[in-house]
């Protein structure tokens, strides 16, 4: 436990982030960011500011173009050869879910568990059913993602990311396109995860979310950062003196918000 508390969950030093679809294009430069275990980070940025690419780098999906990125004190490239357990310490929820379209919701949620622990469908059924119930997805268990509303797809993606009980959860714009009821459910649920949800043994999760609307994430205990003009700016907490003065924050507080429709 002491090791977990001293090693940053994510640490970036002088990192340049390349675009996933074009490794020659740098979208964010000079990122110096350290996420301690148990912290809740909100990274705000406009469309195409590199939020998703930064988060994918933090998850070990990409290597930095320049600089050093460590996850639990290890270089992500080591993950390729490491035991899968190493990678499973980091969960990731994509914007839109990125569920597997040919699988039902149950199969989607069960897949990481079955693959990691070599379980049959029947063996994985119990924990999957319990998780689906927690996420109010039981009635949709046999539906394929194409036949689901975006609100439920996103929730199923969260269930899939949590089935292996990761220590760090990275969420790429999780509230985008959700209706107000679902949005409130997400905010409450993530808050509980940050404090330690009883379903997951009460252990607080380290969380990092990206957003294009800072208002929704207003909370004194959270830490904020902004992506602006290709740079990464740590902003501190919401109540910090310099927070609202930063030019990036002004843009993000007054950005048109499609989620409010």
């Amino acid at each position, binding site marked *: 436990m002491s090791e977990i508390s001293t090693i940053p969950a994510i640490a970036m030093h002088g990192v340049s982030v390349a675009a*996933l*679809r*074009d*490794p*020659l294009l740098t979208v964010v430069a000079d990122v110096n960011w350290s996420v301690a275990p148990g912290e809740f980070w909100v990274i705000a940025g406009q469309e195409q500011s590199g939020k998703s690419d930064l988060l*994918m780098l933090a*998850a070990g*999906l*990409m*290597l930095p173009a320049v600089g050093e990125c460590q996850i639990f004190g290890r270089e992500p*490239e080591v*993950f*390729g050869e490491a035991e*899968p*357990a190493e*990678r*499973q310490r*980091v*969960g*990731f929820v*994509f914007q*839109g879910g*990125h*569920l*597997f*379209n040919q699988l039902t919701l149950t199969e989607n949620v069960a*897949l*990481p568990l*079955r*693959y*990691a622990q*070599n*379980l*049959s469908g029947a063996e994985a059924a119990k924990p999957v059913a319990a998780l689906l119930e927690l996420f109010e997805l039981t009635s949709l268990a046999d539906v394929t993602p194409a036949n689901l509303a975006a609100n439920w797809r996103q929730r199923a993606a969260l269930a*899939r*990311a949590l089935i*292996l009980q990761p220590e760090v959860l990275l969420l790429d714009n999780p509230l985008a396109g959700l209706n107000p009821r679902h949005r409130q459910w997400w905010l409450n649920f993530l808050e509980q995860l940050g404090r330690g949800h009883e379903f997951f043994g009460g252990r607080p999760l380290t969380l990092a979310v990206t957003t294009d609307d800072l208002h929704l994430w207003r909370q004194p205990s959270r830490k904020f950062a902004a992506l602006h003009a290709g740079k990464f700016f740590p902003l501190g907490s919401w109540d910090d003196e310099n927070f609202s003065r930063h030019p990036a924050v002004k843009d993000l507080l007054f950005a048109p918000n499609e989620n409010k429709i």
Partner: protein
Amino acid sequence: MRGNLAKAFEWTNTQVIRSAPLPKSYTDYLGHKLFLFLLTVQGLGAFALITLGVLLKKSGVAHSVMQPRIRHEISRAGVALLPMFLFVALALGFVVVGQTVSALAKFGQINFLGSTMVIVIVRELGPLLAAMLVLARVGTAHVIELGTARALGEVEALEVLGIDPVHYLIVPRVIGMALGIFSLTVYLIIGALASGYLFAFLQDVPLRPMDYLKQIAGALNWLDFALLALKTVAFGFFIAIVTCYHGLAQPLRLEDVSRVAVRAVTQGVIVCVLIDAVFIVLYLVT
């Protein structure tokens, strides 16, 4: 895992070369095309080695998930194509075998029937036709499925869940296609030889079934069986590699999928012809 997957494409980074302006002179143009060809060969070779490595290294990993996937791919590239192959075997028998038998009988050269059938059907037409049909029916589906999965971000989703995309997506397809083409080739050869005799019989060719069988069996040796197995497995492995490489090993957008599918099928045909050429040399040497 992503590193492994991306290496095959990113090492060569053919996107950069492809987007470069075309050279103006013919020799430069030829050089540009040759360079692209060599980069593709390098990318395919790297992807094939990575897949082979994963296939061997992770043979026992997550078998409760992988076995149903492998069974599904064998069914798709083998069992599901049986009706079509029965039709093609009949057609091949009537068109090639039957006509050859009746022509040899007409010229009194029926003694050459066995060796002619072995060269034409067992060594060449059977495996090549089976490979082309599986490439058309299943290979194109591979490119489209994997290309769409890549464009929709499913590959990245697999990686963050700790699932090796090469193991989960490619290995079952490679095994399914290798076993599928091998089995279908055997069915195609048997079907073509049988229907060919039927056609000759209907044309009143004076050849008894036992003589026909004896001639063919006499012309076959153990090397034909061994090389037939090797050749069909090689066809299956490389068709799967080419189609999966184009579908998976490069970042795609949805609008790229159809273009990539055409390129994969073209390269699949070229690879099959090259493998066939290698085996012709082997037959000649042995």
